């Protein structure tokens, strides 16, 4: 194995995604522009125009629904397929997302998290990707540009191992258009880590013809749903293995589905997903100096949901503040809802409170984390919640 010397580049989150697509030797990219995703597919087009990518079929399509349809067709022939989208575009793809996972096609997509309209918004909000929770797609939430790059490479490997599609999610503008240093992996080492795809089946094996998308009546449909769930369960193990291998090869360990930050002796932790957890980690360092025994738990993989890791965490703390940059109307924050549900039949019963933060790109700062810490400390001292769901930023 060649020695690993990272190539450092200053790139936006979107360019990090484009470089990962290039290094993953993706064979088909379906391209349709939508803010703030557009610069991903623009950068890939630029690579192609400059002759930096070979063997890539770049398919400009007329909508996101078609983009996913093109990826499904490509993936069914055995190709490594990629597309990227945001918000309303992802919603338009919804129907096709089921076709991709149902046909067990390991497509990888970057979704740049953006608020759903109306009111029209292009800013960060996780409700778009979380609305696709039940489509059978795995979901990885990136904290920074480095994790976008690493996430795309790992997503292909995991997806192609369990034959399920995967979504790598990054924040609108906070990551997509903000430049940061990203350590990239030399091509030959990426090739070792991510060998060519071995498809479960292929439409282009003309000696063994198959039909995809055939009818499955009440007697057979049920079994195929069960198999998707089994693949999701297998994915938990594969995520751990691939994340560990990534760490051993390239120094960044992703073996945990929930990244724990200074939680060892923490009284309570902040739990959330995506870029806001960078702010939280910084706040944890400051709060620790101020005497708060706090930690951060960053949920990297939302699907499959890391139940076991959450249980281990919940056993060790008195409280969990779930920070949701998303909302399920008529209920509560989506991560909060999942976390609470996962713990119900266990003996881990920390106080768990939901803070709705940063919807539609509302700024979320270290000072906000401090205010939440003060509130969490107060309710833990009292031993009961004030409110279960706190619309933290609301102008009162």
């Amino acid at each position, binding site marked *: 194995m060649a020695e690993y010397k990272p190539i450092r580049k200053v790139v936006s989150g979107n360019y990090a995604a484009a470089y990962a697509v290039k290094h993953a030797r993706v064979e088909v990219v379906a391209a349709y522009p939508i803010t703030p995703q557009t610069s991903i597919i623009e950068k890939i087009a630029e690579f192609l125009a400059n002759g930096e990518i070979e063997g890539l079929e770049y398919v400009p399509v007329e909508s996101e629904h078609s983009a996913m349809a093109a990826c499904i067709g490509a993936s069914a022939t055995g190709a490594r397929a990629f597309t990227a989208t945001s918000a309303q575009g992802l919603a338009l793809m919804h129907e096709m997302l089921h076709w991709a996972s149902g046909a067990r096609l390991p497509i990888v997509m970057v979704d740049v998290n953006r608020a759903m309209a109306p009111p029209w918004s292009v800013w960060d909000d996780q409700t778009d990707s979380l609305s696709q929770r039940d489509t059978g797609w795995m979901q990885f939430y990136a904290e920074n540009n480095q994790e976008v790059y690493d996430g795309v490479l790992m997503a292909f490997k995991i997806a192609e191992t369990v034959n399920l599609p995967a979504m790598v999610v990054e924040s609108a503008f906070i990551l997509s258009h903000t430049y940061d240093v990203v350590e990239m992996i030399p091509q030959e080492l990426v090739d070792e880590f991510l060998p060519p795809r071995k498809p479960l089946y292929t439409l282009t094996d003309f000696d063994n013809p198959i039909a995809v998308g055939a009818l499955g009546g009440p007697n*057979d449909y049920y*079994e195929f749903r069960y198999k998707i769930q089994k693949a999701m369960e297998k994915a938990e193990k594969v995520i751990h293995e691939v994340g560990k291998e990534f760490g051993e090869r390239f120094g960044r360990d992703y073996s945990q589905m929930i990244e724990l930050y200074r939680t060892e002796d923490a009284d309570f932790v902040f739990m959330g997903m995506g870029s806001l957890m960078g702010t939280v980690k910084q706040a944890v360092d400051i709060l620790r100096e101020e005497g708060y025994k706090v930690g951060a738990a960053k949920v990297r993989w939302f699907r499959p949901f890391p139940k076991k890791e959450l249980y281990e965490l919940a056993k060790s703390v008195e409280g969990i503040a779930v920070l949701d940059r998303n909302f399920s109307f008529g209920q509560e924050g989506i991560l909060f809802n999942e976390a609470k549900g996962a713990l119900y039949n266990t003996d881990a019963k920390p106080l768990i409170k939901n803070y709705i933060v940063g919807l539609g790109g509302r700024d979320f700062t270290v000072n906000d984390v401090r205010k939440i810490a003060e509130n969490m400390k107060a309710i833990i001292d009292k031993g009961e919640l004030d409110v279960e769901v706190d619309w933290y930023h609301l102008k009162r």
Partner: protein
Amino acid sequence: MNTLFGERKEGATKIVLKSVDEYPEAPITLGTTLVNFTGDWRTFIPVIDDDKCVKCYICWKFCPEPAIFIREDGYVGVDYDYCKGCGICANECPTNAITMEKEEK
């Protein structure tokens, strides 16, 4: 012959799998319509009267499957492995050379 739902037995149109482990990982059907026939759904069957046929081939044009073929003698025949019994051919035939008859199985 192999299908998604196991080995197709002589004369059987569908094989019932008893355990989830017998199912393939993805819901694909092995083979295409070249090996998996689609003509086992129909109730009525088109029967062609060569004496009335004027070889206009409108039935051949309109068959949506297409299960109508032109025989060597110029008259038309029906490929019953694929005919779904929709009756469009009988409806379109200008000389009423095609009648739909209840199929006896």
